[in-house]
């Protein structure tokens, strides 16, 4: 069963609202906070959050339910554009027995709609409690941090202008940041492949001393600093043939590699200006 809920700035049934509006001569602002529970029946539920402005915080909670608390702060340069923002910028929620998807953005799915509401902005601070085995795929863009702890499901996360910090991690899929640091604290030795990419941020992996990894590195200006033993790892070049219509692309890629400990799953790590730090947890 799927439920689609659209929250459009005014009261939504079943939500507790704390509403505070401030109207200045030019700027129009409105804040509200609400909490809602979404029952899930599957053993490994999923949580997807695609935020634009604000934090995403995830912690383990009760089994069988995803509980989300959201602080929403909406502002626009004038009343007309504020009203416009209510139509164009908002939070869509899609819930099912398997999990919940929170999507912040333009209702039409086109960013040009937002251009018509220049100066409008809606910050969402997500604070979510999930069953411990929940698989996460969360992201934000501006003025936000991704903060996850204690979830044993696999994690994918993205941030453009802020950090990603995950503690008590078991496995990751894809983590990428443009300008923020990626900091991963593993509760156990990683057991599956993971891609981590930053442009300007450092990447820190903290893991048990007995962990083994094969790391494919693509560093431009950064260094690798490790507290775990490493050995050079020969990684064969990869040749890819992509056909698109009558166009044939042949891509050859070669990366440097290191083996940490006795080796294990492959972590593909790339950063232009950041360092890679591998720290041991005793």
């Amino acid at each position, binding site marked *: 069963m799927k439920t689609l809920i659209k929250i459009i700035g005014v009261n939504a049934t079943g939500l507790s609202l704390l509403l505070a509006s401030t109207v200045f001569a030019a700027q129009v602002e409105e804040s509200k906070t609400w909490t809602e529970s979404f029952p899930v029946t599957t053993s490994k539920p999923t949580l997807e959050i695609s935020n634009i402005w604000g934090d995403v915080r995830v912690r383990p909670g009760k089994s069988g339910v995803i509980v989300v608390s959201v602080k929403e702060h909406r502002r626009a340069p004038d009343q007309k554009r504020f009203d416009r923002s209510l139509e164009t910028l908002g939070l869509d929620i899609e819930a099912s027995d398997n999990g919940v998807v929170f999507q912040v953005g333009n209702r039409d799915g086109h960013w040009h709609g937002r251009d018509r509401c220049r100066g409008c902005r809606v910050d969402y601070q997500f604070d979510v409690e999930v069953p411990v085995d929940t698989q996460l795929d969360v992201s934000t863009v501006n003025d936000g941090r991704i903060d996850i702890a204690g979830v044993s499901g696999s994690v994918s996360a993205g941030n453009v202008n802020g950090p990603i910090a995950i503690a008590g991690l078991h496995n990751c899929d894809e983590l990428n940041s443009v300008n923020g640091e990626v900091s991963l604290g593993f509760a156990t030795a990683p057991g599956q492949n993971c891609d981590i990419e930053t442009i300007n941020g450092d990447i820190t992996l903290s893991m048990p001393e007995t962990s083994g990894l094969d790391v494919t*590195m*693509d*560093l*431009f200006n950064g*260094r*690798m*600093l*490790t*507290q775990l*033993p*490493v050995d*050079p790892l020969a990684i064969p*070049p990869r*040749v890819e043939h992509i056909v698109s219509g*009558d*166009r*044939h*692309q*042949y*891509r*050859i*890629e*070669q*990366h*440097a590699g*290191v083996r940490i400990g006795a080796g294990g799953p492959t972590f593909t790590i790339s950063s232009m200006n950041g360092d890679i730090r591998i720290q041991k947890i005793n």
Partner: protein
Amino acid sequence: MKTILIKISLALLLTLATGIAFAQPQVIDIPLSRPGETVNLEISVISAHIEVIGEDRQDASFEISVQEGTRKIITPSGTQSLKTGAYSVEVEEQDNHIEVDTDWRANKVKIVARVPRNANLELSTVNDGVIIVSNINGKMVLENVNGPITATNINGSVIAESVNDNINVSFSGINKDQAMSLSSVNGDLTLGIPEGTGAELHIDSAEGEIVSDFEVDVQPSKPVMSRESNRHGVEVSVESVIIANVNGGGTLIKLKTLNGNINITKSGK
């Protein structure tokens, strides 16, 4: 066997002499959309050794390697150096047009391309580069800012430009309908043309010597003035060239260098 040994020894000597080590090359064979027809090859890489060899073949083959670098890994027991040759090279073929591109992170790239003889080439590099072309019939535009350009056994036309190094182009045949130009600021120019071929040479050399294997018929010339309007105003330039006919004149070939010498030779000799 002897030849192979000599080749390996020479490669080893060259590596030791230059101190440059390239990673094991990768070879990609690329079928053409229209085998047997002229190929257009475009390679533009910031720092590259680019070598294009014309052969009797119906496809194209690329041998690609990258200069090895090192990456430091700081460990509790000290610093380790890791050999790296990380790179990404893309070769794209569409309608007999082949383009080679690298990501900007790559160290110096060595590309040896073996293509059908009938090929038009656009090759360019900037730093620490080399361009070598041989056995090609077609139109060529070759640019190497800080390194040499060498083209031998060429049948067609060449526009070659370098700022700081030598250009050496040797023709087996010249396309009479295409004007050509070899120009360098600080390098020597060597133009080899077949013995009986006519050419109208426009020679512009400020400081260097001009040496010719051919008898030349120097024509009366006068400075050519050109005006060009741009957003900064009007730019007026005056070029004074020596016009010299070889074998009665023919294809226009401009030879221009500021500080280098110009040599006109009989190709194949």
